[in-house]
């Protein structure tokens, strides 16, 4: 996968603790334009907290986050708003607006940021809904009426609403059946290829990592080890070894055993 060399997201010296529990202690990470960057780590390692810090939802004790070379802590409201219109996010639990239909969920960012006539909004939103592989009749449904996999897709459609250049995904394939997860991976792969998106993706799914990611950051011991996928699998850290070469990983390498 091509790498332009332009840093689009940078985290420096991030420190997060909740009471006595230290989650991050001097975490650094860099994402280049057009990367598909996988964040992995054990449950509770602090992946979601990292994402929340990047999005400005968590206030780290120290450290800086810059997107497109701009330190987010130094931006004013209007500048932040334009930065935010430039990235899309899906949360681990979907976080669809429960009072709105899927169509309205997708339209919501458009209404906030674009001034378009109602008909154009409808068509663009339907386009995004179709793009993520949802059936047309899902558009009129409320989040409570969707299956788990449909929630993931609807959340992706909403994240894509403004055609962001940068996409943050928190466990986009967890809770999907293997076929659905593979379809999601293909979808992401296609979107990345066609739209030249930069994707930052938290995942536990090895298949997803090998299908999509060119670089991987592993949270171990409250810091992050970042490298290309090809090299990180040989990293000496025992957790990383166990992760990429453990029982499940072997089954995967052997084509799920004959």
């Amino acid at each position, binding site marked *: 996968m091509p790498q332009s060399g332009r840093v689009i997201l940078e985290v420096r010296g991030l420190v997060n603790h909740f009471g006595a529990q230290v989650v991050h202690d001097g975490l650094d990470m860099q994402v280049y334009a057009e990367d598909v960057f996988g964040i992995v780590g054990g449950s509770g390692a602090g992946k979601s907290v990292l994402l929340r810090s990047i999005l400005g939802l968590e206030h780290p004790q120290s450290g800086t986050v810059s997107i497109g070379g701009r330190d987010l802590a130094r931006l004013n409201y209007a500048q932040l708003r334009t930065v935010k219109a430039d990235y899309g996010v899906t949360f681990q639990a979907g976080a669809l607006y*429960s009072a709105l239909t899927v169509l309205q969920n997708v339209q919501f960012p*458009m209404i906030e940021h*674009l001034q*378009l006539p109602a008909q154009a909004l409808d068509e663009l939103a339907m*386009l995004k809904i179709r*793009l993520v592989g949802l059936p*047309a009749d899902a558009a009129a449904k409320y*989040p409570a009426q969707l299956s788990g996999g449909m929630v993931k897709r609807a959340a992706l459609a909403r994240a894509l609403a403004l055609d962001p250049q940068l996409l943050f995904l928190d466990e986009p394939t967890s809770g999907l059946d293997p076929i659905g997860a593979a379809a999601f991976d293909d979808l992401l792969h296609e979107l990345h290829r*066609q*739209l030249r998106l930069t994707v930052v993706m938290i995942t536990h799914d090895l298949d997803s990592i090998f299908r999509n990611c060119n670089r991987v950051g592993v949270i171990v011991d409250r810091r992050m080890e970042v490298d290309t996928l090809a090299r990180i699998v040989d990293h000496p850290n025992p957790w990383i070894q166990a992760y990429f070469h453990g029982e499940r990983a072997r089954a995967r390498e052997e084509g799920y055993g004959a």
Partner: protein
Amino acid sequence: MTDYLAARRSADSLELALKGEWRALRLKEIGAELSALDLSGVRTLVIATPDLALLDLSSAWRLREFIAAAERGGTAVSFRGAQPEQLQVLDEALSRDSVKAPGEAHTHESFIEPVTELGHYVVSAARDARSGLAFLGRVAVVMLAAAGSVRRLRPIAIARHVYDTGVTAIPIVALIAFLISVIIAFLSAQQLQRFGAEIFVVDLVTIGVLRELGVLLTAIIVAGRSGSAFAAEIGTMCLNEEVDALYATGVDPYELLVVPRILGLMIALPLLTVIADAIGLAGGALLCRFLLDIPLTQYLNRVSESIGAWTFWIGVMKAPIFAILIALAGTYRGLQVSGSSRELGRLTTIAVVQSIFIIILADALFAVLFMEINI
């Protein structure tokens, strides 16, 4: 000068060079430039994209619309070089099947409509009444079943609810009781002074606060604080499927969520009422002392003269009944929440409004009842 287009016209053909970054956020400007183009008399339109730095899906969609409109107008459209890939993505996504935003189901206006509306309303009111009754029955059954063992009554949960609904409400209840007794005393003093009958202010304050207002205002405050909290807590649990999880683990949500709240409030509200009564009388004493120069001893004498055997107990007796009504309304509406945050807000509102209404209605009924039996 345009930011996104450069048009070169020759006779009946137009060459359109796209340039800059075509992004969703600039869709309005891009759309304006495209619709400003004059295509009349143009037979062939050639679109060139070497200067186009970026074309995202939304603006590709706008371009596609533009091309479709041009073709409808009889212009032949072609690309110099390859067609942008984004247009193919769109074609694929849009061709999967007909893409139409599902419209709202339109019902036709007609003269029958008010009648059908009325019908719907009656049916839904009847359903509501029936499910309310079912809820009541179920709570009664669960409560009787739980009464057999201390563990199933969940004393710890009850204690928590006594604390949340009672102890934390003391400051606001005390303040309101004080203010209300001051208002009664002040209002009646103004009237009674004209007849030199100031001493009866004490009677009014005593009877008014002990019999009616102490308990009524306390109940209204608690309905606003705790009725809404009950509905919101339980409603959020419904939204998170926590209530379903309870069912699935074999725990009856009525036993865990409804009964402790009812019992907790039945303990808390009478106690709050006693506090309100005491503070109310104290407020009356203060006002009588400083406004009417009735010394404290005389005030106390008058209080004990005016107070009947039942005055205090009538007020306090009503408290547990009001508590049941508030808790029932709150938990019932909470358990009805499903689907969306809007439902949660709607049902929490209903819980508060209905519990306040029921309390006042019940108080009126009590007033009639006590008058009939002459106490």
